[in-house]
């Protein structure tokens, strides 16, 4: 996800930033869903509230880091991370019933790591696709 041809240090810094953002957003979304299921009655209502609050929290986090990591570069992954973090918790709850806060935290972090890895893989694919024609400055 980091831009090409930036210095090695900047590239690593952006990668660390992207990783931290996606893990944070995943955790926020997962916790929001967990709490919503505790406090909002009805599975449908709690899922909708959990998803909305999780994505809202994610977007606020993205807003805070966009001056460093970029606007689109944070908004797009955050939208996806906010959604799948909450959905993952719903799915696990469906299978396993009630889960602990720590377990929820782990699920959220894991969704962030998975999303980061998938975006990295797609980034490599995009570079391969376009890089036959590198700039010759």
């Amino acid at each position, binding site marked *: 996800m980091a*831009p090409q041809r930036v210095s090695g240090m900047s590239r690593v810094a952006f990668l660390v930033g992207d990783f931290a953002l996606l893990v944070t957003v995943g955790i926020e979304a997962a916790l929001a869903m967990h709490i919503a299921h505790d406090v909002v009655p009805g599975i449908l209502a709690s899922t909708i509230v959990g998803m909305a609050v999780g994505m809202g929290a994610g977007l606020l986090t993205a807003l805070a880091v*966009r001056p460093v990591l970029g*606007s689109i570069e944070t908004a797009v992954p955050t939208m996806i991370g906010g959604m799948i973090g909450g959905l993952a918790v719903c799915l696990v709850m469906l299978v396993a019933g009630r889960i602990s806060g720590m377990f929820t935290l782990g699920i959220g972090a894991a969704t962030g790591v998975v999303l980061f890895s998938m975006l990295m893989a797609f980034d490599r694919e995009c570079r391969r696709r376009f890089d036959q024609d590198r700039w010759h400055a």
Partner: protein
Amino acid sequence: MARLTARGAWARRAALYDWLEGSDLRRASAKKRLFGRARGKTLLVGAGTGLDFRHLAAGSDVTAMDISDAMLTRARARAAASPARVRLVAADALRLPFADGVFETVITSCTMCSVPDPLRAFTEIRRVLGRSGRLLMFEHVRSTQPVLAATLEVMTWWSRRSGTEMNRETVMSASAAGFRIARIESVFLDIILAVEALPTNDMFDRHEDGATGSGWHADDPRGAPPTCAGAA
């Protein structure tokens, strides 16, 4: 009408633009590389608050235009500080107030997400570009990856209200307006791209035959150009 709407939307966004969207820490190196390819008299379409001025080549002759006076007001200080000689002009990208073929380079930077009709804007850009000119685009576009494309689609539901479409197929619109894509660099996935495009020659041929400079005309054998909606 579109002009008034665009002006209004961008006047409202101007005050917060630098704070919300102005950081190009991450994009700076790609921009510098792309804009460094500008040659000769250059037109920057959709200059905004002038964030890109610092990436222009030293001493280059740049006309920076935007539809929004509020944006241009904010761009003034950056124009003065730019290494290039920057002249600011308030104008509509859909009706560029320049003669045919006067520019050697046209730059767009996150512009095509914002103009109401990208195909028309590209057609105008092509008209003002000389035969051997080049178009340098730093643009965000719709992704080819279905989940990312759907996300950009959803984001457009609300970003459209403030004048930005996240889901445009800008490279395709440029081709439809008669540009050949020479190079593409991925800046962020396949969403933010640095693109160099060259005008194809058929427009100039028709132009010399007395056809309009629009690149498309009613009896064009290729039929009507794709509409903005089709291109978006």
